[in-house]
């Protein structure tokens, strides 16, 4: 049986999303190494995506089948990326 759905605090999630957006932009202007900046910016993007998926798309209340439908295409994408990457990196 599906877990009972309670509505998360949607406004609080939005505040986190906006905060992470501002943090990403600020990081891109900071005088730090490009590698560190890129890492932090994409960590922020990943956290934002997870916040939207779990709270706005209510994935946290969904059944395993729905998770599978979201994760399997992502896995296919990563396999595709890893398989093709040497063609670019070793060119």
């Amino acid at each position: 049986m599906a877990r009972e759905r309670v509505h998360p605090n949607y406004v609080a999630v939005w505040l986190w999303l906006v905060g992470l957006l501002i943090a990403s932009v600020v990081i891109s202007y900071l005088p730090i190494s490009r590698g560190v900046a890129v890492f932090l910016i994409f960590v922020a993007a990943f956290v934002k995506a997870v916040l939207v998926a779990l709270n706005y798309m209510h994935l946290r209340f969904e059944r395993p089948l729905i998770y599978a439908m979201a994760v399997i295409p992502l896995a296919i994408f990563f396999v595709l990326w890893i398989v093709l990457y040497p063609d670019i990196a070793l060119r």
Partner: protein
Amino acid sequence: MAEAHVMAVGVETRSVTGIPTGKLGVWWFLASEIVLFGGLIGVYIMSRLGGAGWSEMAAHLSVPIGTLNTFVLLTSSLTMVLAFAAAEKGNPKGVRTWLLLTVLLGLAFLIIKGFEWSSEIGAGFTPTAGAFWSFYYTMTGLHALHVLGGVVVNFILFLAALLGLLRGSEHRVELAGLYWHFVDIVWIFLFPLLYLSW
């Protein structure tokens, strides 16, 4: 074939999966969309890592405009999920208000994007100005088409709510929301990939 039964709220549910058929369909669609955008983004990342001069091209994009548009889309996700919450609480006025705001924010995103494209093309950065610009217009164009599709769907739902036709079919707001939030997630990655220096 799996049996289906109808729950009290009128949502048809597959007995095998226990998931409403509409939701299952939307997630199947989103699975194909993940592969579509994932493939495009993957090729972009590989091409960018394998070539020089992309950062210089990306520096011509307006970070303030990109940030504003990201803010608009994130806010539209909030209004969309609030429409769904209002639908679950049986609040038709709330559904109408939040859906209309979502439509307007989606249109605002498209208008800002159109303004941005016209200024970039005016500056000579056309889709044929280089690989970066080809990717930029392809990815943002495909995303904008998805936003436009979402705006149309949300507007139809708004009209249905306005005419009282949504009664008993409130779950459609959730289904439209799943798609809208997915489009938001795609932009969450497109923004740093295209706009923020790396």
